[in-house]
C-alpha cells in the first residue's frame, strides 16, 4: 500500500514549530463568573512541556470551569478575566477565528463521560475523520489508516469494527479509548482530561489512566488532569493544584503537596481519602470483630438465584449466592456494575422474588410472604439509597419525610412521633432548623443524613446501605461514614453495605463478599480479603485502588497489559 510510509509517524512526535521558551501553559489570576456569581477566583499555575499537572477539588471547586476556560468551551453566560498563555500566546483574548487552529492541534480534550461525548447518530468513523482532518493529510483513505492505527495504539481490539460502529454499540471503556485516540491523533502539545474515568468501573479506570500516562510519556504531551481523587492525582502527575470554592488552597510538586500538605484543606482532603487511610475508623469498627464469633446470624442468604430474560436471552443476575451476617456487624457486597449486587439487595428486601434459595431475616424466612407480612419485616429492615437526590420526595418537608414511616406503621402518639423525628435527626447531626426545609434546600450530604434518619426512626435492626456515599464528595463521605459507624457502635445495628469502592469497604466492613457476574467469587473477613486475596478477580480489584505516590505507576508505564479484554 502506498500509504505505508505514512503509517509510522503517529508514535513519534512530529515537531512542527520550533519550541518557544517558558512553560507550555501559564494561567495567571484567572477569575470566571456566571452572572453575578464568581466560581473561580484569582487562580494561577504553570504547566511545563511534557509534564503533568492535576487540578484537584470537590464539587463546586471550579476545577472543571478552569479546564473549560483553557479549552475556551465556557458557556455563553460565563465571563473569564485574567491571562491564560499557551505556547507563548495569550488565548483568552484571542478571537475565535485565531484560536480555532489551536483546537485539537494545540490542545486536545478528553471529556468526563464517554457515553455522551460522541454524537449518538453518527458513526465513530465519521467523527474520527473530523479529528483526522487536522492532520493536513488530503487522502481520506490514508487518514482512515491513521485513525485505525491510532485506535490500535489506544488498545482497541478491533479498530475496524470500532470505526464502523455507532457510539452506543461500544462499552464505556472502549468509548473512552476512542476519545483518547481522537484527542492524541492530531498530536496536540497539551491534553486536558476532565475526570476522564469517573463514569467508568474501577478496573477500567485503572487501565484508562495507565493509557493516558503512557501516551503522555511516549508522545511527550503535557497533561492537565482534572480529578476529585487525590490518590489518582498523586499517582499520575508531577504537580498538584488543590482547589476549594474556586480558589487555590495549595499548589506545588506532587511529592511536596501529597506527603506534607501545608494547608488545612489539603490535609483534610488527604485524611478523607479512604485509599490512603485504611485504619481511619478502626476504633469504631474493630470492637465489632468480636461479634463475628459469638453473634447469631441476623441475615442468612443461602443458594439464592435470580434470572431475568432480556431479548429472549436468559441472564443470571444472581447465581447461587449465599452469605450470613452476624448481628451488629457490617457485611460488604463488593463488585463492579452488573455484578449482581443491586439485585441481591432487592431480593434481600423482598422487592423481587428469588427463583431459588432462601433468605432469612432475624430468623424469619422471607420466601412467599404476603405484602402484609413483608411490612412487618420492613419494620426491622431498612434501606438507604445510593442517590439522595432521588430518594427523597422533593415536595415534602424534612420533618414530614422522617415522620412518614412512623405514620405508616402507626407508631406512638403524634406527639411522640414528633419527638422521635427530632431524636433521629439529632443522631445524624441535623438540628431543628432543618425540620421545615425541603430536600431541594439541602446539600447532598444533608440529604443523605435525612435519608439515614428516616431509616433509623423505625429503630430497625438491619440497615441495607446501597452505595450510600457514591454520589457524594469525599469529605462529605467521610462525615456520613463517621455517622454510620458511631450509630452502629451505639445501637448495635447490622449493616449490609453495597459498594464498588474497595478502599471504603476496607475502612468500615467486618466481612466482605466479592461479586462478579452474579456470583460470589470470594468471601471472608476484611483482613482475609485485603491482605491475602485468593482469587485473581479480587486481586485485580485490589490493584485498581489508587495508592497515591508510593505505589505510583507512571514511572514505569510499560509494565501493564494494554488491551482491554473483551468478554
Amino acid at each position, binding site marked *: 500500500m502506498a500509504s505505508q510510509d505514512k503509517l509510522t509517524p503517529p508514535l513519534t512526535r512530529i515537531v512542527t514549530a520550533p519550541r518557544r521558551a517558558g512553560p507550555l501553559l501559564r494561567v495567571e489570576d484567572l477569575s470566571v463568573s456566571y452572572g453575578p456569581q464568581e466560581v473561580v477566583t484569582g487562580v494561577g499555575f504553570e504547566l511545563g512541556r511534557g509534564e503533568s499537572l492535576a487540578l484537584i477539588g470537590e464539587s463546586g471547586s471550579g476545577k472543571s470551569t478552569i479546564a473549560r476556560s483553557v*479549552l475556551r468551551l465556557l458557556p455563553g453566560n460565563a465571563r473569564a478575566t485574567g491571562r491564560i498563555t499557551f505556547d507563548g500566546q495569550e488565548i483568552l483574548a484571542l478571537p475565535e477565528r485565531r484560536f480555532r487552529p489551536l*483546537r485539537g492541534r494545540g490542545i486536545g480534550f478528553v471529556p468526563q463521560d*464517554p457515553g455522551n461525548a460522541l454524537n449518538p447518530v453518527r458513526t465513530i468513523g465519521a467523527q474520527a475523520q473530523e479529528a483526522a482532518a487536522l492532520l493536513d493529510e488530503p487522502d481520506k483513505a490514508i487518514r482512515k489508516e491513521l485513525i485505525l492505527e491510532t485506535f490500535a495504539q489506544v488498545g482497541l481490539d478491533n479498530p475496524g469494527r470500532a470505526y464502523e460502529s*455507532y457510539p452506543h454499540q461500544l*462499552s*464505556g471503556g472502549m468509548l473512552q479509548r476512542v476519545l483518547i485516540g481522537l484527542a492524541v491523533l492530531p498530536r496536540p502539545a497539551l491534553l486536558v482530561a476532565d475526570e476522564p474515568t469517573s463514569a467508568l468501573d474501577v478496573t477500567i479506570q485503572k487501565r484508562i489512566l495507565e493509557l493516558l500516562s503512557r501516551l503522555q510519556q511516549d508522545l511527550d504531551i503535557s497533561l492537565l488532569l482534572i480529578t476529585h481523587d487525590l490518590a489518582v492525582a498523586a499517582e499520575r502527575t508531577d504537580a498538584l493544584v488543590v482547589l476549594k470554592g474556586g480558589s487555590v488552597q495549595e499548589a506545588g510538586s506532587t511529592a511536596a503537596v501529597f506527603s506534607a500538605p501545608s494547608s488545612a484543606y489539603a490535609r483534610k482532603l488527604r485524611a478523607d481519602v479512604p485509599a490512603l487511610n485504611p485504619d481511619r475508623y478502626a476504633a469504631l469498627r474493630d470492637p465489632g470483630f468480636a461479634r463475628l464469633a459469638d453473634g447469631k446470624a441476623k441475615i442468612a442468604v443461602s443458594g439464592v438465584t435470580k434470572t431475568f430474560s432480556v431479548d429472549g436471552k436468559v*441472564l443470571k443476575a444472581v447465581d447461587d449466592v449465599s452469605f450470613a451476617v452476624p448481628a451488629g456487624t457490617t457485611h460488604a457486597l463488593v463488585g463492579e456494575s*452488573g455484578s449482581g449486587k443491586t439485585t441481591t439487595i432487592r431480593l434481600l428486601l423482598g422487592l423481587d422474588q428469588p427463583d431459588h434459595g432462601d433468605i432469612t431475616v432475624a430468623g424469619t424466612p422471607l420466601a412467599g410472604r404476603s405484602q402484609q407480612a413483608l411490612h412487618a419485616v420492613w419494620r426491622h429492615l431498612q434501606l438507604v439509597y445510593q442517590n439522595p437526590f432521588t430518594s427523597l420526595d422533593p415536595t415534602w418537608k424534612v420533618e414530614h419525610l422522617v415522620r412518614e414511616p412512623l405514620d405508616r406503621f402507626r407508631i406512638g402518639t403524634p406527639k411522640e412521633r414528633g419527638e422521635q423525628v427530632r431524636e433521629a435527626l439529632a443522631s445524624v447531626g441535623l438540628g431543628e432548623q432543618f425540620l421545615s426545609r425541603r430536600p431541594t434546600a439541602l446539600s447532598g450530604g444533608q440529604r443523605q443524613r435525612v435519608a439515614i434518619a428516616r431509616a433509623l426512626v423505625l429503630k430497625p435492626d438491619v440497615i441495607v446501605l446501597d452505595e450510600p456515599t457514591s454520589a457524594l464528595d469525599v469529605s462529605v463521605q467521610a462525615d456520613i461514614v463517621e455517622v454510620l459507624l458511631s450509630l452502629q457502635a451505639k445501637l448495635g445495628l447490622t449493616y449490609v453495605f453495597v459498594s464498588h469502592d474497595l478502599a471504603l469497604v476496607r475502612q468500615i466492613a467486618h466481612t466482605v463478599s466479592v461479586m462478579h*457476574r452474579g456470583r460470589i467469587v470470594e468471601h471472608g473477613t476484611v483482613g482475609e480479603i485485603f491482605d491475602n486475596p485468593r482469587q485473581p478477580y479480587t486481586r485485580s480489584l485490589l490493584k485498581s485502588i489508587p495508592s497515591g505516590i508510593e505505589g505510583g505507576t507512571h514511572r514505569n508505564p510499560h509494565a501493564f497489559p494494554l488491551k482491554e479484554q473483551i468478554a
Partner: protein
Amino acid sequence: MRNAYLVYAAKRIVQAVVVILLTYVFTFIVVSILPGDPVTNVLRNPQNGFSEEEIQAIIAAQGLDRPIPVQLWDALSGFVTGDLGLSMRSGRPVATMIAEVLPSTLILASMTLAFSLIIAGLIGYGSQALPRKYGQGIVRGIPSLFLSVPNFVIGLLLIHIFGFQFGLFRVIDPNSFWATFFASVTLATPISAQIAEVLVANLDNESRQEYAAVARARGLRQVRLFFLHLLKPSSLPVVTVIALMVGEVLGNALITETVFGRTGIGSLVQRSVSTQDLPVLQAIVSLAAVVFVVVNLIADLVYPLLDPRVKLVGAVRRPTTADEGSANIPSRVVTE
C-alpha cells in the same frame, strides 16, 4: 433486531386499525346520537323548512327509521368498504362532494407544510447561529408570538396588507396564486411555530451535550457543527411532530378557508355544520382521522429506521458485564 422491528410494525398497524374504527364509532356518537334524534332535531325543525314529503324521502334514503345500532353497523361497514353514504341535504354521494373540494385543500396543505418546514428550519438555524445577544433573542421569540396570534387575525392581516393595500390578489378570486400563497402562510404560522419550538429545544439540548463541546474542542466551526452534528439528532424527533401537525392543518383549514373564502374541506365542514348535514360531517371527521392515524403510523414505522439509537426491546434492566464498563450510554427504547 429485524424480528423485533416486524413485531413492532405489526403491533402498530393493528393498533392503528383499531383506533380508526373506534374513532368512527366515537364520531357517530358525537355527531348523530348526542344531539338527539336527527328526524325531530333536523328534519322537523321548522327553521329548516322541509316539507313532509321531503322528510319522508330523506328518512327513506338515509334509513333513519331503523334502530340506531343497525344504522351504526351499516354506516361503519359502508365506511370500511369505501361507501360514505349520501348527503342529507342534496342527496348526492358524500364521496363525490369530498372529491370535488379535496384538490384545493391538498394544494393548501402541501404548500403549508413546505412553508412550515422552511420557516421552522430558518428559526432553528437562527436560534443557534445568530449573535447571542440580539439576533437569537428575537428569533427565539418568534414561535411564541406566532402561537399567540389567532389564525384568522393573521389571515385578515395578510388580506388587509397584501390584498387591499398592495393589491396582490382580490378576495373574490380566492384560487389565484397569491391568495393561495397567503392562505398557506396563514395556515403555516402556528404549524411552523410548533415545529420550530421542538426543533429549537432539541438543538439547545444537543448543543449542551458533551459531544458538541468535544467536537468544538476538535476545531469544528459553528456552521459545520450545526449541520454535521446538531441538525440530525435534533430533527429526527421533529418527524413525529410533523406527523402530528397534519391533524392541525386539517383542523385549522376550516378557519383559513373561511377567511380567504376558499372552497375546500374546511368550508365544506363549515357548510355541513350550518345545514346540519350529518353524513357529510361524519365522513369528513372520520377521513381526517384516517389521514392523521396513517401519517403518524408511517412516522412511527420510519423513525426506528432513521435513528440508530432506537432499540426495539422491552424495558428490562439489562445488567452489564464487568468488562463493558458502566458509562451511561443513552438508549431510546421503544416500548408498548
